[in-house]
C-alpha cells in the first residue's frame, strides 16, 4: 500500500515537520471515523489511574469485555493488598440492557463487599451504562450507607471523550474520596507524589529519594496507595506531579480545595531527575534538605553516569521514534535520548496538549516529524522515511516496530524494569542497548 497517499484531509492537520511549515499542530480532536486509531477510551483512562489503589474493589459495571481487557494489565506493584488484581464485572446481560442494570449492580456490590470486606469500592461506568441510563450515583450512595464504606461511582462512559476525559473522571473520584474540606492540620515537609503508578516499583524508588532528602512521602497517587493513606492526602504541604497528562487536574483541584501548592517534575533521565530533586529542595528551602539533596544527587550520579556513558558509546548516532500517551513523557524522552546519544526523529502522542506540542517543537531538531494520534501506517511511513532504529511505544506498537526490523522499548504498562530516577535511567540505557544492539536484527536479510 502506498502510505504516501494516506492522509485523509482531516489527518493532515495533525502532522507537522519541524522547520518545514509554520502551521500549528491540531490535537485533542476526536479520531476520524474509519481510522485505525491507537487511542483508548474514557473508561481506560479512568481505570489506569485508579487501578493501583490496592485495597479498593474495582467493579466494572458493564458487559464482560470492558472488565476482561483490564484485568491486571498494568504492572503496578503493591506492598499490601492484592485485591486490585482481581477482576469484578456485573457482566450485563440482555435483560439488564432492557430493564436496566441497577438491581444487578446493587446485588453485585452487596455480594462482593460481604466476601472481600474492602474499605472502598470504585464502580466504573462503561459506554452502555451511559446509554441505558442507570443511576450510578443513587445505587452507590445506597450501597455506601448499607455497608458503611465508601462506594464511589466513576463516570467513565467511553464515548464522551478520550483517555484524558477518563483521567479527569478518575481524579474526580479521588477528590470525592478526600472530601471537600481542607484539613486543619498540615504536616510540614510532607509530600504527595502524583502521577506515578508504581510500575515495576518506580514509586518506591522516588519515595526513597525523597526520604533521603529528609522529606516525608504522604501518599503516592496512585501507585501502591490505599484507602487509609489516600484520605490523608490533604494534609501534605506540597504536591509534586510527574505524569502531568493524568494528574495536572488533580493537582490544580487540590490547590484550590486544600491550598496545597504543586510542582511539575519529571524523573525520567538523569538531568530531569536531578533538576526535579533540586526544585523540590528549593521549595522547602531549609539548608538541611538542600544539603542532603546535593549529597543524594552526587552519590547517585557518580554511580550511574559511568554506566550510562558505557552504553552511550554503543548507541551514539542511532535514531529513535517515540509514540507515547502523554505529551509530558514525550518531552522527557527527547531529553533522555540525548543523554545516551540518540536523536529523536519522529515523535507523537495520543493525548498531548497544545502547550506540550510547542515545547516538543522547541526541543527537537530540524526535520523531526511531530504528530498527534498517529495511526499505524503513519508510524510506519515516518519511521521508514526518517530511518528510525528504535520505536518507543505501547503494546500495539511493539509488533509493528519488529516487523519493520526496528528495535522497541515499552514505555507503558508492559515495562519490565523501573525506568524512573537514576537507576531507571541506567535501566533505560540498558534496555535501549539490548534491543538496538541485539544480534537478531542481522538475520533480517536472508
Amino acid at each position, binding site marked *: *500500500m502506498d502510505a504516501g497517499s494516506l492522509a485523509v484531509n482531516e489527518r493532515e492537520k495533525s502532522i507537522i515537520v519541524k522547520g518545514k511549515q509554520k502551521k500549528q499542530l491540531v490535537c485533542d480532536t476526536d479520531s476520524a471515523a474509519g481510522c*485505525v486509531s491507537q487511542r483508548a477510551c474514557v473508561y481506560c483512562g479512568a481505570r489506569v489511574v485508579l487501578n493501583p489503589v490496592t485495597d479498593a474493589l474495582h467493579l466494572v459495571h458493564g*458487559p464482560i*469485555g*470492558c472488565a476482561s481487557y483490564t484485568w491486571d494489565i498494568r504492572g503496578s506493584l503493591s506492598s499490601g493488598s492484592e485485591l486490585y488484581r482481581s477482576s469484578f464485572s456485573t457482566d450485563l446481560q*440482555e435483560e439488564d440492557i432492557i430493564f436496566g442494570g441497577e438491581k444487578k449492580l446493587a446485588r*453485585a456490590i452487596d455480594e462482593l463487599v460481604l466476601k472481600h470486606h474492602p474499605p472502598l469500592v470504585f464502580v466504573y461506568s462503561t*459506554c452502555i451504562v451511559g446509554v441505558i441510563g442507570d443511576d450510578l450515583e443513587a445505587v452507590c450512595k445506597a450501597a455506601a450507607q448499607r455497608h458503611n464504606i465508601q462506594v464511589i461511582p466513576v463516570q467513565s462512559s467511553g464515548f464522551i471523550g478520550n483517555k484524558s476525559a477518563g483521567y479527569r473522571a478518575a481524579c474526580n473520584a479521588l477528590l470525592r474520596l478526600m472530601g471537600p474540606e481542607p484539613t486543619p492540620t498540615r504536616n510540614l515537609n510532607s509530600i504527595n507524589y502524583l502521577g506515578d503508578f508504581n510500575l515495576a516499583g518506580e514509586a518506591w524508588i522516588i519515595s526513597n529519594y525523597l526520604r533521603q532528602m529528609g522529606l516525608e512521602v504522604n501518599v503516592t497517587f496512585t501507585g501502591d496507595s490505599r484507602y487509609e493513606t489516600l484520605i490523608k492526602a490533604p494534609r501534605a504541604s506540597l504536591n509534586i506531579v510527574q505524569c502531568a497528562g493524568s494528574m495536572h487536574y488533580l493537582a490544580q483541584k487540590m490547590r484550590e480545595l486544600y491550598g496545597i501548592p504543586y510542582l511539575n517534575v519529571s524523573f525520567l533521565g538523569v538531568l530531569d531527575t536531578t533538576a526535579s530533586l533540586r526544585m523540590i529542595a528549593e521549595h522547602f528551602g531549609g539548608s538541611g534538605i538542600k544539603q542532603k539533596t546535593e549529597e543524594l544527587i552526587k552519590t547517585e550520579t557518580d554511580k550511574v553516569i559511568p554506566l550510562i556513558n558505557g552504553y552511550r558509546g554503543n548507541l551514539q548516532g542511532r535514531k529513535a521514534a517515540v509514540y507515547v500517551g502523554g505529551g509530558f513523557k514525550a518531552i522527557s524522552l527527547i531529553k533522555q535520548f540525548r543523554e545516551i546519544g540518540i536523536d529523536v526523529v519522529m515523535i507523537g502522542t495520543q493525548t498531548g496538549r497544545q502547550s506540550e506540542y510547542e515545547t516538543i517543537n522547541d526541543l527537537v531538531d530540524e526535520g523531526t516529524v511531530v504528530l498527534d494520534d498517529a495511526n499505524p501506517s503513519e508510524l510506519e511511513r515516518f519511521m521508514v522515511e526518517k530511518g528510525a532504529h528504535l520505536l518507543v511505544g505501547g503494546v*500495539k506498537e511493539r509488533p509493528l516496530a519488529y*516487523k519493520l526490523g526496528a528495535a522497541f522499548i515499552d514505555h507503558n504498562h508492559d515495562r519490565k524494569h523501573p525506568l524512573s530516577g537514576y537507576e531507571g535511567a541506567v535501566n533505560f540505557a540498558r534496555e535501549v542497548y539490548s534491543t538496538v544492539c541485539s544480534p537478531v536484527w542481522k538475520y533480517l536479510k536472508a
Partner: protein
Amino acid sequence: MLEHTPKEIKERKGGMINPAKTCQPIGAMYAALGIHKCLPHSHGSQGCCSYHRMHLTRHFRDPIMASTSSFTEGACVFGGGANLKTAIKNVFAIYDPDVMAIHTTCLTETIGDDIPSYLGSAEIPDGKIVIHANTPSYAGSHVTGFANMTKGMVTYLAEATTDTNKEQVNIIPGFVNPGDMREIKRLTKSMGINFIMFPDTSGVVDSPMTGKFEMFPRGGAKVEDIRDTGNSKLTIALGSFASTDAAIQLERKCKVPAKTLKTPIGIKATDEFLMALRAAFISEIPYELEEERGQLVDIMTDTHYHFHGQRVAVFGDPDVVIGLTEFILSLGMVPVHVLTGTPGAAFEKEIKAMLLEAGLKANVKANGDLFELQQWIKNEPVDLLLGNTYGKYISRAEDIPFVRVGFPVLDRSVHSYMPIVGYQGAMRLVEMISNALLDRADRDAADEDFELVM
C-alpha cells in the same frame, strides 16, 4: 494474590469475578482477520476497538489491524449511521482493503443501529466488499462473536453457482491458533482432498518478518474461495460453538451438507476428522498419517504411567475444552473440574456424556468464572491445571502445575505457531503435560528420591 478467595461456595447473582470469557467483538475481529485483505471494523467507541486489538496483539505478538467508527456522544443520540458511512469512505480511501468486515459493539447494539440499512445507502467503491455481523457482548462470549462473523461470511459471500457439487470440502476450523489451522490444512492436503478453509488466519497473524510492515499480509481465505464454498460437497465444522452456525447457514443457503465434529484435539477426535474426510471422498489415509498416529500411540504408551489417575482441572473456550477433556481421559487422567466462561447447555451435556462413558463424575459448568473454579479446587484439589494465561493466578495460589493452552496466552510466546490439533498436536500436548508434571516431581523430590531416569 488470590489468597482472599474463600473456600466456602455461596451462590452469586451479581456478575463475574475473574472472568473466563470476554466479549463477542474480539472473536468477530479475529475471524475477520481470516479473510485475505480484510480490515475488521469495530462499529462503536474507539475504546473497545483499542482493547480488542491490544488483546489480540498480546496473544499473537503480531500487528493486529482494525478500524473503528469512533463514536462520540452525538452518534449515540442520533444513531451511528453517519459515522459508519464516513468510516466506510475513509477505510477504502486510506487502507484500501478488499473487504471490510463490520462488527457491532454493545453500544451500537443498545442504541439499535441497523447495519444492513446503513450499508444499503453507503457508498462502497466498485469491486469492494462490506460484510457485517451483529455481536452484542451482553450475550454469549468471544466465541459467539467468532461464530457470528464466520456465519456472516457465508451470508454475504457464499454462492452455489455450479449444477453439480465440486469434489472439495469446506473446513471451518473454529477459534483456534493459526498453527492449528495450518495443521488441519496439512492433514487434509495429505489426504489428497481439495478444501477451502475459512476463516484462515494463518499467514495473517503469524506472518513472517520481512523488514516491511504489511497492512494485509499474504494469508487469509480468499473471497473467491469463500464464494465457492457454496459449490462444495461437504462442510466440516470443527467445534460446535465456533463453527456450526456458519455450516448450517451454508446448508440452508447453498444446500451443502454440514457435519459438525469436535475440534480435533487428541487421538480420538483426530481419527474422527480423518475418517469423516475418508468417508466423504473415498480417499485413503496415507502412510505418513498412519505413521504419525502410530508414533502418538507409542508415545502415549511410553508415558501413560505418568498420567494415570492424575486429577485435572480444565477451563477455557468450550470447543477446545471439550477436545482437551476427551484427550486427557484417553491418557487415563481424571478431569475433576471442567469449566468454560461461554454460556451454553450443550457444553455441560457433552462433557457429562464423556464422563459418564468413563464412569466418572466432575464439576462441570458453562458460563462460569475463575473465582468459582478456584473455589472448586480448594474443595477438591487437583494435580494439574489446563487453561489460558489467566490460570496462572490459581496455579500460584494453589501451587498446581499449569499448562497453558487456548486463548488468550499473554505471558508465553511461540504457542500460536504450534498446533494442539492432529496427531502432532497431541504429541505436543503430551510433552507439555508430562513436562509440567515431571518438573513438579523433580522440584518436590527429597534428595533421596530425586531421580535421573523418569
